[in-house]
């Protein structure tokens, strides 16, 4: 399979390690079972799988927002026990404070750390510009479209300068055109920021377009069914979307997921 070309990036050192992770809700719902995964530093890894297979659960455990039933998560070699400054979360429903301006929302992570107002606003302004929202600093979330709100969520996560960005279906509440533009901007942003992204989506195209590595999860209980390396093709967004390797990878994932649907 062309999609599984091994390349040098596969040897990149991993920043997040998930070991024997299981999660059972209320002693009944087995959401995750014995997950073992490495997330290479500086790369984007996508968790892809049918709805309800435990993607959000895994991301929240890595974020330290949920306790695993068993197993552990290591970040930078240290076992996590809760949220930490080396990780930042981007929420599916944006989780912006409606009473605060774009600037205050973007600076909120720094505000919580007790950084002085001038300093944190300056940093937030930089990231607001980076996500393409210059001029909207004093707007309120209700005045922005869904796509713009998620850009604020992204700026807030970038501003705290975490090593790992955890994104739970960040574009699912955004319309299709905005979504494409957003994906392209994400690729450009990853070039500048050199961070590690862990990204949840249920869109195969989105996963392959953005990722270095795609983790396919099976139906409940969520298990890793396959890890696919998807080296990013060079060129313009349109060239990438017509690239042979890209299309082959999308097709391969589609065939694999179809098995779950037919089961």
């Amino acid at each position, binding site marked *: 399979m062309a999609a599984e070309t091994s390349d040098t990036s596969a040897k990149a050192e991993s920043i997040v390690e998930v070991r024997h992770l299981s999660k059972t809700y209320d002693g009944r719902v087995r959401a995750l079972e014995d997950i073992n995964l490495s997330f290479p530093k500086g790369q984007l890894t996508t968790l892809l799988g049918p709805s309800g297979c435990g993607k959000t659960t895994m991301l929240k455990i890595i974020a330290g927002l949920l306790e695993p039933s068993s197993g552990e998560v290591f970040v930078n070699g240290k076992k996590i026990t809760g*949220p930490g400054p080396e990780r930042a*979360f981007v*929420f*599916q429903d944006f989780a912006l*404070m*409606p*009473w605060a301006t774009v600037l205050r929302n973007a600076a909120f992570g720094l505000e*919580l750390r007790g950084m002085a107002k001038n300093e944190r606003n300056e940093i937030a302004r930089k990231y607001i510009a980076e996500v393409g929202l210059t001029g909207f600093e004093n707007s309120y979330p*209700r005045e922005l479209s869904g796509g713009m709100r998620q850009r604020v969520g992204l700026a807030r996560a970038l501003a705290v300068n975490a090593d790992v960005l955890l994104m739970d279906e960040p574009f699912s509440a955004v319309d299709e055109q905005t979504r494409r533009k957003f994906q392209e901007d994400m690729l450009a942003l990853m070039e500048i920021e050199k961070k590690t992204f862990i990204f949840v989506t249920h869109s195969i195209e989105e996963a392959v377009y953005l990722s270095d590595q795609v983790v396919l999860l099976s139906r409940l209980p969520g298990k890793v069914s396959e890890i696919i390396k998807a080296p990013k093709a060079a060129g313009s967004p349109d060239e990438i979307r017509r690239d042979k390797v890209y299309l082959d990878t999308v097709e391969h994932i589609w065939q694999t997921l179809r098995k779950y649907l037919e089961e």
Partner: protein
Amino acid sequence: MKIFGVKIPMMYSLLIWVVLWEIVGQMEMFLVIPPFSGIVVAIIEMAQAENFHDAASLSLYSFAMGMLISIIVGIPLGLVMGKIPAADRLLGMWVNVFLSAPLSSLVPIIMILFGFGQTTIIVTVFMFAVWIITLDTCAGVKHINPSLLEMGESFGASSWQMYSKILIWAVLPEILAGLRLGLIRGVKGVIIGQLLVALIGMGELLTVYSRGFHMEEFWALILFLFAFALGTSWLISLLERRIEYYAGSRG
């Protein structure tokens, strides 16, 4: 309001009642219903009378103090009950009991505990107003968008920051709704407290007027109190409308 298919604006329907009142009053059908014009005269006289000023400022003071304590106690209590299930189980029952109990019957006990003065009135206002503020705040916390809390947690908010920077702002619409209802109950508290103590403020005036059958003055005072209760709750509703925008953007 519609009469014979014709739409009557609010002000006119009020006018109809006033006219009706005037007619019934002029006919001298009931002793307790004087003509409305007499009440208007009484209101104008009352506004200049010293005993009214004394009673009003005394009542206003008790009301304001009682409301202040209700806010200081009610909001934090509601926040904690909404956030911590154990606190809710422990205190929720009492809040509901006090909310639905006939509080007037407690005033004699408050009187025994706090004497026949201002303190009793302040405590009465507090007992009338605080529980609805607590309950609404608590309900607001329970309906808060959970990802807003996760956001605070993931960015490392301390529990104080969680309350002061996120919770209280997210719950502001419910807090104001509780405050509006609390104010109306608080006005009731002042009057009932003063009526039962019967020695101070508006309660004293009301007692004097009704015992002496000064019905014009009695109604003048009642109308004034209605206007005060409606006026303050209207002010809160203005504030509510200003922050309404964020009710729409909650998950």
